[in-house]
């Protein structure tokens, strides 16, 4: 009887040590894990604010033309170098009427090119083609080109920076 009691006490003592070891180990992992995992996940939680970027003087754009404009993205890090550069296709449709398309094909993000002679945007990767208004003309894109907000500010054409457009379901 005595022996049995001792064994069960021994077991509960052992169980206690087991549980405390697991708990302390888990707690330590959780405490250090929060900042570690948090720092890795931060880019998808902390979104940079969009910024208006000037892309050129109003008078430099000809009505009817579609031209490539380059600008710095919304969240350039100090060591980004040329990777902070981005581009868009700017269409001056009227005196103060602009449309600005993302350069990323809505299929899989490849850089579409403006073929002025054909007045088409063409994607080199999987053959997506868009009309000059950004609608799909041919190929696999599930939707038209994404666009950026444009404004004219003190004679400057400005584009509101946006994330790389991700086509979702």
């Amino acid at each position, binding site marked *: 009887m005595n022996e049995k009691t001792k064994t069960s006490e021994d077991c509960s003592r052992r169980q206690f040590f087991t549980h405390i070891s697991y708990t302390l180990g888990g707690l330590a992992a959780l405490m250090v894990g929060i900042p570690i995992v948090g720092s890795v996940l931060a880019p998808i939680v902390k979104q940079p604010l969009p910024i208006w970027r000037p892309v050129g003087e109003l008078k430099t754009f000809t009505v009817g033309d579609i031209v490539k404009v380059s600008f710095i993205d919304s969240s350039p890090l100090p*060591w980004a170098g040329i990777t902070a550069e981005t581009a868009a296709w700017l269409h001056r449709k009227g005196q103060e009427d602009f449309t600005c398309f993302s350069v990323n094909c809505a299929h899989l993000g490849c850089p579409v090119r403006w073929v002025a002679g054909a007045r088409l945007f063409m994607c080199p990767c999987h053959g997506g083609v868009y009309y000059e208004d950004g609608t799909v003309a*041919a190929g696999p894109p599930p939707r038209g080109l994404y666009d950026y907000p444009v404004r004219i500010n003190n004679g400057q054409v400005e584009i509101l920076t946006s994330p790389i457009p991700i086509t979702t379901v």
Partner: protein
Amino acid sequence: MESLRRAWLWFDDRTGLGSALGPVIKHPVPPNSASWFYVFGSATLFAFMLQVATGVALAFMYVPSAGEAYQSLQYITDQTTFGRIVRGMHNWGASAMILLIGVHMVRVYLTASYKFPREMHWISGVVLWALVVIMAFSGQVIRWDQTAVWSTIVASEQAGRIPFIGEWVAQFLIGGETIGGATLSRMFAYHVFIVPALLFIFIGLHLYLVIKNGISEFPKAGKPVDPKTYRKEYEALVKKKGIPFWPDAAWRDMVFGFIVITTILVIALIIGPPALGPPPDPSNLDALPVPDWYFVFYFAFLALMPPQMETYLMVFGPLLVGALLFFLPFISNKGERSPLRRPWAVAIVALTIASISGLWAIGISSPWSPHFDAKPLTVEIIGADSGPIYRGGMDFNEKGCLYCHKISGHGGLRGPDLTYIGDRLSSNELTWRIMNGGLNMPGFGGTLTNDELSDLVIFLKSRTKQNQESSSLGGD
């Protein structure tokens, strides 16, 4: 020599390494497993060791900074001592790993070595294969040139199609909302810390399992695996006929491994590393991001899949393939192992190889892509130097027709060859097709003037076999 031997004896006495590892490397294996069919797993391991060594060497010189990585790669390739060779070995070593792990998987599948009791060998192998693929992709990205930038975006766009969490996964891959400083740093961390750590863990598990359950014997037709008796039979086999793994079986691994390593070195010496593309400037749109050869078949798959099904195929296709591979041992873990008695297994392998090869061949030529660098039609091909045929030919060059259609060997492959289109379609049919488009062709009704349309139709109508022959006779 004697002093070295004494030093080893002292070291072994204190550490016990010799007595611990000796029986492991000399463990008995079935005599028929000492075969040239069984060398691909160890060759993959040798290639991995080379990747670790060359990767560490590259890390001494590579700068994982978005703004400077490209210049550091130029420096490694052009200015450092042996840097070009080390980069070349790392690149071709990656190709070797992809190739060898694929051959190893095919061998294991065909000989059904994944059956009882080696289910976990296969599963750990599938995880290793997935990790090798991730390494190949992340390695291509940290080669931080223009293709790397656009490949990252393409991968993120695919991730974006995952239901509900797609955008988050995409931004996790990019390291934010746009390509930039964070993208390369994160990809570098995956490539040199996270994935290699997982590789070491799973290689350790894979090798431990090989020791624990033994190398599978080469299968015999008519001798199925029965989980109730297999272990006893295997133990009896190795006890009675087994040969020590080292060196009786391992010498073939060493010979083949030597050939693999030497081949990688020779290719690195002769061909060198892949040329860097233009700098990683996302605003330079003059880009055609084609992945490294081992992903070209998937690149083709993305282009050829039906658009209405592509989201499902893009997201669930790889998941389904991964799940099928992962759960294979649970679908069948007993019965015949010999490929002679498993015709479906042989057929699946043949079909897979044929599909990948076919997609690869199509991916190389990428007929769906407009050929922006197509040579313009010459006056000789047009067959006139003035008038509507000439003007139509010039329009064909300038209006983008040339990028997708071929005439007399000049032009793209996306649309039909129009060399003899005048024999097939009437002027009305040509006009209708140009104006309205069709299938994969955009309509040009809104962009061509009446004169341009008329010239273009006259030019195309002149593309007949008779005209071509008389023009070539005239040329003679």
